[in-house]
């Protein structure tokens, strides 16, 4: 059975390495500062007893006041998982550091999030629309996109 790391446990580990960067947590999730995302990702990837070498999925959810990004992480060797969340409080061109250099599996997923939710991933090598065409107006998965 895959053990889900609790938010308390993960936020303690992150805060030890990056003081004050994992501000909120609950039983399952931990919210981290957007600017520290890339460093924290690398820390989670490289620390042997965390060993999050596998990025399961990246999701963006539009909560109107903010856009939340959800990262599902997994360690196949230790068989445990974690959920990392971060919030962007702006609606025009929200910016998040890209994690492609840590997990290359983020490549197509970040392009999809940019395409459908309009979150700009800084440092992505090839941030183009993926499902829609370049001239498409707007980002359809946002709640204010009415088609």
């Amino acid at each position: 059975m895959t053990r889900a790391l609790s938010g308390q446990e993960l936020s303690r580990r992150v805060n030890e390495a990056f003081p004050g960067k994992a501000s909120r947590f609950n039983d399952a999730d931990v919210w981290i500062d957007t600017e520290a995302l890339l460093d924290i990702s690398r820390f989670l990837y490289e620390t042997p007893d965390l060993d999050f070498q596998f990025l399961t999925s990246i999701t963006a959810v539009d909560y109107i006041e903010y856009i939340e990004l959800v990262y599902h992480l997994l360690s196949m060797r230790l068989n445990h998982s974690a959920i990392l969340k971060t919030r962007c409080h702006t609606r025009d061109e929200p910016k998040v550091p890209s994690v492609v250099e840590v997990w290359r599996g983020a490549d197509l997923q970040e392009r999809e999030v940019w395409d459908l939710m309009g979150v700009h991933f800084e440092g992505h090598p090839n941030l183009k629309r993926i499902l829609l065409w370049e001239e498409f107006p707007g980002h359809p998965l946002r709640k204010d996109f009415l088609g």
Partner: protein
Amino acid sequence: MTIRTEPVTINLGPQHPSTHGVFRLRVTLDGEVVLDVEPVLGYLHRGSEKLAETRSYVQVVTLTDRLDYTASMSNNLAYVRAVEKLAGIEVPERAQYIRVISAELQRIASHLMATGFLLNDLGAFATPLMYCFRERERILDLFEMLCGARITLSYMRPGGVFQDAPEDFWPALGFFLKDMPGYIDDLEGLITDNEIVLARTRDVGTLSAEMAINDSITGPILRASSVQWDLRRADPYEVYDRLEFDIPIGSVGDNFDRYLVRIQEMRQSVRIVEQCIRDIPDGPIRADTEYFMRPPEGDAYAAVEGPKGELGFYLVSDGGIAPYRCKIRAPSFINLTSLRDMVVGWKMGDLITTFGSIDVVMGEVDR
């Protein structure tokens, strides 16, 4: 003396028999050698995730049929499991067994299609494909007995399945299971030792284990790269923890390993279904849930080991009758991440077979 050549960029697709749907590859070639590949997606994009936001939780099941249209049962299962996790629904045991039986039959059907189309891409036009389709047809007949549909099944519901299997289903399933190992032997006899297949697939399009993990690859492709990771074993859902089965893995992660892993998985699926028939209890087939269910506010992610890889649904509820957000983690889509590394440096013909061995379904890639 070397002859200088100019690289040529061509479009493979969107309409091309070997792209398994509407898919375009911009290929840069030096003579016959592939220099660069860029996948161009979205021709089949229907906005399933957006559509799900305006449908009730039960209605979304019909949308999931149309993702990977060669494996509707697995899609149904992944989605209803996410809803059950979100709403905290307990599924009756009989329903869990029926769901495992149908998901495993679907795995066999999907792998048969993958194998048939791989042979098609190798140039063995139509004949091996029709052999595979003959067996797949019998599985579709079984599904027709279960729910009246053959492709877009919508058989599962949050809390169980929508009706019990009819009396006739069980003997028909028994006949099928009796015949299936022989069919797989026949298929292997035709393909596995075939000299042309070996020459074209051995050591072609290899993918290392480290790269597969870093690229978020799942399913038979990951296991062909000798990573023993299967959600049915690593994070058992339904009744998989009570069933005995092996997880076949490959050695080098080439096209041949990917083919072989699928063949062996079919044998394991037959084994799993046989155990389910032996163990299935009587009882209700669906938990008592409202049609317009309102799961409490929150989010949930649930995944199953689909035929293509980890198929996951991330649902967010705001307490209403429709999901606030329904994200689909589509394995075919993410498995395309390492396509470029697998084909660069190989010949054009190898690109076609490698793409065939990844087994993507465009309905799932574009959603």
